[in-house]
């Protein structure tokens, strides 16, 4: 009987610590995702400037180089473009995506869709540069938030777990 009680207390402690770590990882993942998206858009702008490949093909190549979730976005966008316009395909694949970015970040990325595949190369490149600047400022803000919150939520998780354990001891 005592052993089961102690086991439950240990489980509660581990559970609370885990929840704290999960929440703290959300902040660090957002920073990572924003940086990856920036790299991906840079690759896109370079390829659009220098080669004359069609957009779905560029997206496929980008998705091979990027890591999981961002790569999924580009892969889905590229496959969506087979039956809809480039802009709509981009919007749709952003909506079903599963990244850690904020709603604001995704809204601005959707703004890319207006010019994708419609205007000429310089227009697209300058639009991408605009979004690059925006992503830079978002990355700075996300870094600040991460510094403030990451450690706090980890400590919070452990301490709350300990408090609950001691109350029920």
């Amino acid at each position: 009987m005592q052993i089961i009680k102690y086991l439950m207390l240990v489980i509660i402690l581990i559970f609370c610590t885990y929840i704290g770590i999960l929440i703290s990882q959300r902040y660090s993942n957002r920073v990572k995702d924003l940086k990856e998206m920036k790299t991906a858009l840079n690759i896109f702008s370079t390829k659009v400037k220098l080669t004359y490949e069609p957009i779905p093909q560029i997206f496929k190549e980008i998705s091979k180089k990027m890591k999981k979730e961002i790569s999924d976005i580009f892969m889905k966008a590229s496959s969506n473009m087979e039956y809809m316009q480039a802009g709509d395909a981009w919007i749709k694949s952003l909506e079903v995506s599963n990244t850690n970015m904020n709603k604001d970040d995704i809204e601005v990325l959707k703004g890319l869709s207006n010019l994708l595949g419609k205007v000429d190369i310089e227009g697209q490149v300058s639009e991408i540069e605009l979004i690059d600047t925006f992503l830079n400022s978002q990355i700075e803000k996300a870094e600040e938030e991460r510094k403030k919150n990451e450690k706090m939520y980890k400590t919070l998780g452990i301490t709350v777990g300990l408090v609950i354990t001691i109350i029920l001891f």
Partner: protein
Amino acid sequence: MDINLLFKIAAIGILVAVLHQVLVRAGREDQAMMTTLAGLVIVLTMVIKEISTLFETVRTVFGL
């Protein structure tokens, strides 16, 4: 009145102090205040049985 109760209250006190400091340093003063108050309430509920025993004893000692 066993010694375990005392240890529990001491441990909760230390942990609430740690939580308070962490939240104040992170800038969330109102939440820090809330958790301190919550810790206080929790310790009071743990102790209330002893307080009632104390009042009973006082009543019997003074014959009131």
